[in-house]
C-alpha cells in the first residue's frame, strides 16, 4: 500500500479531511507534523487547506520557513510528487514550488461555495484518472484564491501545458476572468490549478477531498486523489516519469 503524507501545520484545518480522502482514494494516509524534518519515507505529499500558522501576515508566507517545508522542497526537487490544496497551494506558491501567486479574491471577501473546474490534460500524476475538459463540481473556501502571474508568465504556462485546472461554466467552457458566477475569485485566465515545469508538483484552490463522497453532494474530486495515489504508487516502484510539455496538453472544452 502506498503511503501518502499529509502535512499538519498547527493551523491546518483540512488535514483530517485530506487524510480521510487519501484513504478513500486507496492510499495509506500518514500525518506529517510541521516540526519534523523528514518525510517518513512517504511516496507523495499533500499540503492541505487551512490557515497554516494563522495566516495573519499573508496566506502561506510563514509556513514556507517550517522544518517540514524544507524537507518537502528537497523531496520535490528530487522529483517527488507534491499536491497543494487551497492553503497548501498558497504555501507551495510562497515556497516557489509552483509558479504564480494567490491574491485576495476579487470583491475582497472570503468565498465558500461550489464551483466547477476542468482539467486541461489527463497525462499528469494528478489527473491520470480525470477526463480532460469534463466539468467537476467541488467547493472552494478561501479569501486569497485569485491566481496571478504576469502576462509573459501566463503565456508561458499555457504554452507549456502547466495550466492544469480552469474554472469552467456548467457546460465546460472556461470562465471569463470577469465571470463572477463561474470564476468567483477573479483568477487570471480562470486558472484554478497549475503544475510546476517538471510536472511533479501541482497546486489547486478548490477542495477535491470535500467532493469525494456522494453524501457530500459530489464525488467529482475523488479521481484527482486517486490519480495522485496511483502516481505515487508507480513512482515508488520507479515507474512514473512525470510528463510535461506543450505537446501533451489538451485544450479545455475540446475533449468532451
Amino acid at each position, binding site marked *: 500500500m502506498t503511503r501518502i503524507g499529509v502535512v499538519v501545520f*498547527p*493551523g491546518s*484545518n*483540512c488535514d*483530517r*479531511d485530506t487524510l*480521510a*480522502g487519501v484513504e478513500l482514494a486507496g492510499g495509506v494516509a500518514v500525518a506529517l507534523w510541521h516540526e519534523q524534518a523528514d518525510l517518513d519515507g512517504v511516496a507523495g505529499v499533500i499540503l492541505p*487547506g*487551512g*490557515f497554516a*500558522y*494563522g*495566516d*495573519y501576515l499573508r496566506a502561506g508566507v510563514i509556513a514556507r520557513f517550517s522544518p517540514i517545508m524544507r524537507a518537502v522542497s528537497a523531496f520535490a526537487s528530487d522529483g517527488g510528487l507534491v499536491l497543494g490544496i487551497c492553503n497548501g497551494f498558497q504555501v507551495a506558491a510562497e515556497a516557489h514550488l509552483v509558479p504564480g501567486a494567490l491574491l485576495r479574491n476579487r*470583491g475582497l*471577501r*472570503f*468565498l*465558500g*461555495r461550489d464551483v466547477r473546474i476542468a482539467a486541461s490534460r489527463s497525462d499528469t500524476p494528478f489527473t491520470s484518472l480525470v477526463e480532460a475538459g469534463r466539468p467537476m463540481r467541488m*467547493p472552494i*473556501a478561501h*479569501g486569497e484564491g485569485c491566481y496571478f502571474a504576469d502576462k509573459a508568465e501566463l503565456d508561458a504556462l499555457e504554452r507549456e501545458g502547466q495550466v492544469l485546472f480552469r474554472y469552467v461554466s456548467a457546460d465546460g467552457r472556461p470562465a471569463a476572468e470577469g465571470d463572477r458566477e463561474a470564476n468567483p475569485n477573479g483568477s487570471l485566465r480562470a486558472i484554478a490549478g497549475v503544475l510546476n515545469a517538471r510536472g511533479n508538483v501541482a497546486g489547486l484552490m478548490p*477542495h477535491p*477531498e*470535500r467532493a*469525494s*463522497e456522494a*453524501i*457530500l*453532494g459530489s464525488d467529482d474530486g475523488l479521481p484527482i486523489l486517486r490519480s495522485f495515489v496511483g502516481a505515487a504508487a508507480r513512482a515508488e516502484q520507479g515507474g512514473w516519469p512525470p510528463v510535461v510539455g506543450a505537446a501533451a496538453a489538451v485544450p479545455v472544452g475540446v475533449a468532451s
Partner: protein
Amino acid sequence: MTVAEPPVARTPSIPLHRSLGLTDDELDAIRERLGRDPNDLELAMFSVMWSEHCSYKSSKPLLGTLPTRGDRVVAGPGENAGVVSIGDGLAVAFKIESHNHPSSVEPYQGAATGVGGILRDIFTMGARPIAVLDALRFGDPAEARTRHLVDGVVRGVGGYGNCVGVPTVGGELVFDPSYGGNPLVNVMAIGLLEERHLTRAAAPGPGNLAVLFGSSTGRDGIGGASVLASATFSDDDPAKRPSVQVGDPFAEKLLIEASLELIERGLVEGLQDLGAAGITCAASETADRAGTGVAIDLDAIPRREPGMAAFEVMISESQERMLAIVRPERVAEVGAICDRWAIGWAVIGRVTDDGDVSVTAGGHELARIPAGALTSNAIVHDRLSAPPARRRAAPAPGAPIVASDQLPERGMDPGAVLLALLGTPNLASRREVYEQYDSTVGTLTSTGPGRGAAVLRVRGTTKGLVAATDANAAVGTADPWLGAAMSVAEATRNVSITGARPLGVTNCLNFGDPTRPEAFWQLAEAVRGLGDACRALGLPVTGGNVSLYNESPSGAIRPTPEIGVVGLLDDVSLAIGPAFVTAGDEVLLVGEAGPGLGGSEYARLAGAAPEDGPPAIDLGREAGLQAFVREAVARRLVASAQDVSGGGLAVAVAEAAMWSGLGTHLRLPIAGSPAVDLFGESPSRIVVSARPEHALAVVRLAEEHGLPTARIGVVGGDRLVIEPVGSGATGAAEERGSGVADSIDVALADLRHAWDHGLARALGWDVA
C-alpha cells in the same frame, strides 16, 4: 482574617459597588454572605459574577419551570453545553449563546469572539465542534449603521469560524427596526463526542492543581459581563470599547486540538473555558460544582502587559484561555501537550477543601469568598411582571383565535405580491451572506446553508444530525407566549421535515430590561410558551443563555426567543429536502391555514402593525404533524417536504420550485381569504411532494395523525401557477373588473431574479 486592599480606580462621588453595577440591596446581600464588608477586589469579583449574564439573577426562577429531562440527555442546563446521546457510544453537544452587546460596539470582534466563546463551551465538554449556526438580527437595511454592522458581523463570524475550521452551516438573518440600536448576534455550536470522553467543568480532589493554558491574560474585556452584557445601551458606547474582547482564531484552533488531546488521554479531572468573568468565573464554578475550593496564586498567572491590578487579572475576559484541573503527577504530561501545540501554560492554583475561592499575591491573601456565594448561591431577584396596558389575552394552547383581518387584500395582484415578498430582505436569498462562510470544512456537511435545516453526516455510522435555528419575534411582539411557542414549533418542524427526530432544544432568550415590569412580563410569558411547546412536543430543554437589557435610546428590541434544535437521522441517506425532486410528482398540503395575518411578512409589506391578530397555534396538532412527516419520510412515501412559514404557502412553494428548477401547477382551495391562504403564516402546515402512487398513502397517514390534507397539484414545467379555487376565491379580481379569481402565474426565472437579488439590493451590495 486580614485581607489586603488592592487598588481599584474610584470615582469619589459614587460608591464603588454602584460604579461596578451592583445595587445597594446587592451590596447588603454580599455582606450577608461574607459576614463582613467585601474589599475592593472581592467587590469586583462579585460584580461580574452577579451580573445578569453570569448569575441569571432575574431569569433563574423562570428557567426552573422548563422541562429538562429526557432519556437521552447526558448533560443538561447548568453545564457548558447540553449533551444528548445518539447511540453507538456517541453523543452530541450543542448550545446557543448571544454576543449582542459586544457586536453592537465592535461588530467584527464582537461576532468573532461570539463564535469563539460558544466553540469553547462545546470542546470543554470533550466534544469536537462540527458546526456553527448564526442567528443575526439587525435594523433597517437601508441605514448606514445597519450596513456597517451587517458587514462587520458577517466578516467576524466568517473570519473566526473559517480559520478554526468549523463550518457555518445555517442560521438566520432578520431585519426589523426594533434591532436598529441593538443588533442580535446569537451563535449556536454543535459538537460530537464519544460519551466516555464527557468532561465536567468541575474541580474535584483537593490537592489537584489548576492549570491555566492558552493565551496570556490582558486588559481586554474588563467587565464585559457586567458593563456590556448587563446594562442598557446609552450614548457613551465608544467608551465601552475596551470591554469588548479581541479574538484570535488561530489560538483557538490550537486550544481545540490541545484540549481534546488532554481529554482523550485522560489527563484532566475537570476542564472549564474562560469566558465571561474570566478566572473568577472558572475558579468559582468549577469549585462550586465539585463542592471544593480553589486557591489562586495571582503571581503565577501569565500577563500580557505589566502593571495589571489584581482585579483586572481576576476579571479579564481575554479570549482563548482554558482552566484544567490536573492531578499533580500529570502536570508534566499536560505541559508537554501544551508545548507541542505552542500554547502557554502555568499552574496557577490548587484545589482545596475549604469551599472558598481565594486569591493570593506576594504571600498576602487578597480575597476569600465562598465559591457558592459567587455562583449557585448568588442573589436571585423577584422581578415585577406586568403586561402592557394594551394587549389581547394570551390564548390557551390550542384555542383558535378569530382575528379580524384589516389588511388591504382587496384589489391585490397575488403574483405581484409574491414577487415583492421574495425580494424583501427578510425572505430573499441569503447567499451573499452565507457564501462568506466556509460551510463544507470537516467533510460532514450533506446539506449546507440556504435550503432549510442543515444536515451533517456522522462519520463512521449511517447516522446524520440535523440542525436549525428559528425565532418568531414578530408574533411575540403581540403575544410573547405565542411567539415562543411558534419559534419552538418552527425550529423543530424544520428538523422533522427532513425525517429527523428532534433530540432537544437550546435557547437564547433576547429580551429588554428586566427591571421594567413590561419587559419582564415578556420574558416570563416567553419562557412559559417555550416550556408549553417543549412539553407538547416531548422535548427537553438542554441549555441556553439569557440576554437581557437589549435596549437602546430608541427603544427595546422585539422579544426574541431564539430556538436551536438538533435532530437525529438513523440513516442520513434517507433525509429529504424542501425542493421538489421529480416532474410528475403530486403536491399535497398537509395542515390548513388559520386566520391571523399579524406578524407576517405580508402584513409588514401591507403596513399592518404586529399587534393586529396573529395566528393561533394548536401544539397538539403541531406534534401530530411532525410525527406524520417523520413517519412519511421513514416509509419513503414523500420525496420532499417544505415548511410553510415566512411569506406563507406561496413563498414556500416558490422556494421548492426555484431550488429544484421544477415548476408546479396548483389549485388551492381558499377557505378564508386569498391573503390568508396564500401569504398567511399560521403554523403547523407543510407542503410535500410524492410519487403519484404514494399520494393516497400520504393522505391516509395524515388522517391517522388527525391532519387535514389537500392534493393540490403536480410538479412540472417552468412556471409557478397557483389557482385559487372554492368559495373564498373571489373578490380581488372582480373588483378590478375581471370575471375570474386572480391566479399566480410567474416564470421560475422571474421568481429567481427577485429572490436572488433582494438582499444585495437592500444592503447596497449590488452597486459595488
